[in-house]
């Protein structure tokens, strides 16, 4: 080093120079060194106390026995315990009276929303708008196949629709009219049904269809096509179609029938969860 400059404490420069600016090679404070050693000791201790070193099948467990999975289980258990009281209240309360209890209703709505997103959104959609092309009903509107009171909704959630697992499941079966009626009669029926909501295109077919409708369909759907929630028969006179309201879709529905199913949830959800999700769905705008 050519530069032998020394400051008053006897330290030279590092030999680096930038535009005439040099750097004294002053010593580090000794406590910095200690701190550095302490961090090393801490680091080694950490890998002993916590899971760290990868081995063949799994990492070392650590002396403290910590694991994120166990922590999650603890958190879930803590949450379950924290909610145990209000869950019990929800499971036993009279459903019609829940709206008088603001705290319980708020809890049911939040809890029901998370149950809905976990178990129901696969078919009904995360926004509960259903999928018309697949016949998953929209739960936001005011049309209900099996009734839209909280009690009716929770029954549907509990037992499901047209499933073999639950003897109390909602059940209705529309015959496949392709084997009963001629193609012409089906075309007439379709046009008559469309006329109920003011969408008919062929007046001649409508007139002929009325007789076919009254003979074959009115038993379930009613003389005026208003449907019947006790049989799960859809209202044909409103603006809402479960599968679609055009000639082609309706012809297919009448010819082959439809058979939408929903699993029963009584086995997989707790009483409080069933009630919570029923209250949530009821509060989405269509509840009766």
């Amino acid at each position, binding site marked *: *080093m050519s530069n*032998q400059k020394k400051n008053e*404490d*006897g*330290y*030279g420069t590092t030999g680096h120079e930038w535009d005439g600016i040099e750097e004294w090679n*002053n*010593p*580090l*404070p*000794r*406590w*910095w*060194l200690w701190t550095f050693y302490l961090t090393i000791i801490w680091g080694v201790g950490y890998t002993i106390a916590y899971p760290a070193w990868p081995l063949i099948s799994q990492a070392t467990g650590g002396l403290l026995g910590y694991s994120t999975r166990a922590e999650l289980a603890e958190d879930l258990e803590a949450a379950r315990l924290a909610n145990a009281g209000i869950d019990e209240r929800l499971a036993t309360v009279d459903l019609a009276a829940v*709206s008088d209890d603001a705290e319980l*209703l708020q809890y049911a709505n939040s809890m029901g929303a998370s149950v809905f997103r976990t178990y129901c959104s696969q078919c009904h*959609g*995360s*926004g509960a*708008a259903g999928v018309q092309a697949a016949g998953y009903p*929209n739960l*936001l*509107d*005011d*049309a209900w196949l099996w009734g839209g009171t909280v009690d009716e909704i929770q029954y549907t959630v509990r037992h499901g629709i047209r499933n073999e697992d639950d003897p109390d499941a909602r059940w209705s079966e529309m015959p496949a009219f392709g084997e009963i009626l001629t193609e012409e009669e089906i075309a007439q029926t379709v046009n008559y049904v469309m006329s109920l909501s003011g969408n008919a295109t062929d007046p001649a077919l409508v007139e002929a269809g009325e007789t076919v409708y009254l003979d074959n369909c009115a038993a379930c759907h009613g003389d005026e096509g208003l449907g019947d929630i006790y049989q799960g028969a859809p*209202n044909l006179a*409103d*603006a*809402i179609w479960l599968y679609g309201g055009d000639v082609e879709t309706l012809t297919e529905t009448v010819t082959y029938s439809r058979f939408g199913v929903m699993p029963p949830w009584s086995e997989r959800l707790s009483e409080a969860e069933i009630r919570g999700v029923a209250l949530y769905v009821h*509060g989405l*705008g269509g509840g009766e």
Partner: protein
Amino acid sequence: MSDQSTTPSLYAAREPIFPRRVSGKFRSLKWVILFVTLGIYYALPWIRWDRGPGIPDQAVLLDLAGRRFYFFWIEIWPHEFYFVAGLLVMAGLGLFLFTSALGRVWCGYACPQTVWTDLYIAVERWVEGDRNARLRLHRQKGWDLRKARLRITKWTLWLLIGLATGGAWVFYFADAPTLFRDLITLQAHPVAYTTMAILTGTTFLFGGFAREQICNYACPWPRIQAAMMDEHTLTVAYRSWRGEPRKHSEEVDEGAEMGDCIDCMACVNVCPAGIDIRDGQQLECITCALCIDACDDVMEKIGKPRGLIDYMALTDEDAERAGNPPRSVWSHVFRPRVILYTALWSVVGLALVFALFIRSDVEFTVAPVRNPTFVTLSDGSIRNTYDIRLRNKDFEGRTMRVTVHGDPSYRVQLEGSAYESVAVPPNSTLLQRVYVVAPRGSGPAEADTTSLRFWVEGLGGGDRSYHDTTFNGRGAQ
């Protein structure tokens, strides 16, 4: 390569510093600032401020769990965090302002590290005696009963101050009397004890042992402030042109004319940073001005004018060497740069005050539900859903009415209510699902989007505000 025999150690131990007691106007000022700032810090959480039933009555409270910040008559909600950002901007600009005008005045008088170190040194002096006594105690080899007693007394007092410091900190985050009782009865949350333990430890360590090491090695401010100072910035300096050559200086011939400095080392002995101000401006100097007090005292005694060490700007040196009288402090302080910082600082401050006064007691946000964009009802009408968050900042419950304006065909409905109004509990936010229905064949029902304005009105108060959004119709498909 440098000579091995002269290679200094790579690591240096801290040089212990034993500041001597000093009195004077700057020392008095520092005592006042110490008592005022620490007094505020320790007492503030205990001041009560009645806000009504069920709402914290602590004047200053950072309620993290409840997501509220209470400051006397002001209450800050999470969505108003810009107030805190504004205060931080003001704090930053304030530091710039004070630095460009008065140099490291923050470091010297107001920095917690300085204030607590000052307090710790005062305790140390009270227990162990002044500089010379402490030096003797430090140099004493081996421990006897007296040294042990003094050391243990000092450390105990330091720890108690540290404990009070950490304790006061946690009181800002919870109801102080309740937390105090819980702390004593060992009922408080572990976080409270951990926070207190950490702050007690750091206060003890930083105030008692690390002291100027924090300023020299840990704090970025001494580096940043160099960029903000200029030749007009006030700083503590030694009038070398008046003081040199010093008495006792070996380089001075017998009988030669002497400077005012008698090399009594008073300025060095009182310095908490352990430097000699006569070496000129230094990184370590926090401009605490204690050397000014010490030197003025000596100048008085030897009958020389005060101000051998004084607050001055770098430009003064040239002027005074040329024989001009010293410029007044104020002429250094009032210059464009300082005025600009003051203006910026004031603008932010005024904007915050303005924002504080125009805050409405009725506030709400509208989040249109877009999953799905609209719902067809059985009679063919179109319904849109909006999640409205109604904020009642009052400490009393209020009823708020929601109305819609825009197209005459709109009908508004509140989920779970047959009315247009809803009761919002005090000091809280209510999430209300609101439906707007447009009948079949109406403009909004058939159009793609139509504009819509929500009005929310606090009944009985007259406060109201609006929010614009849109209504989606069938035309969107």
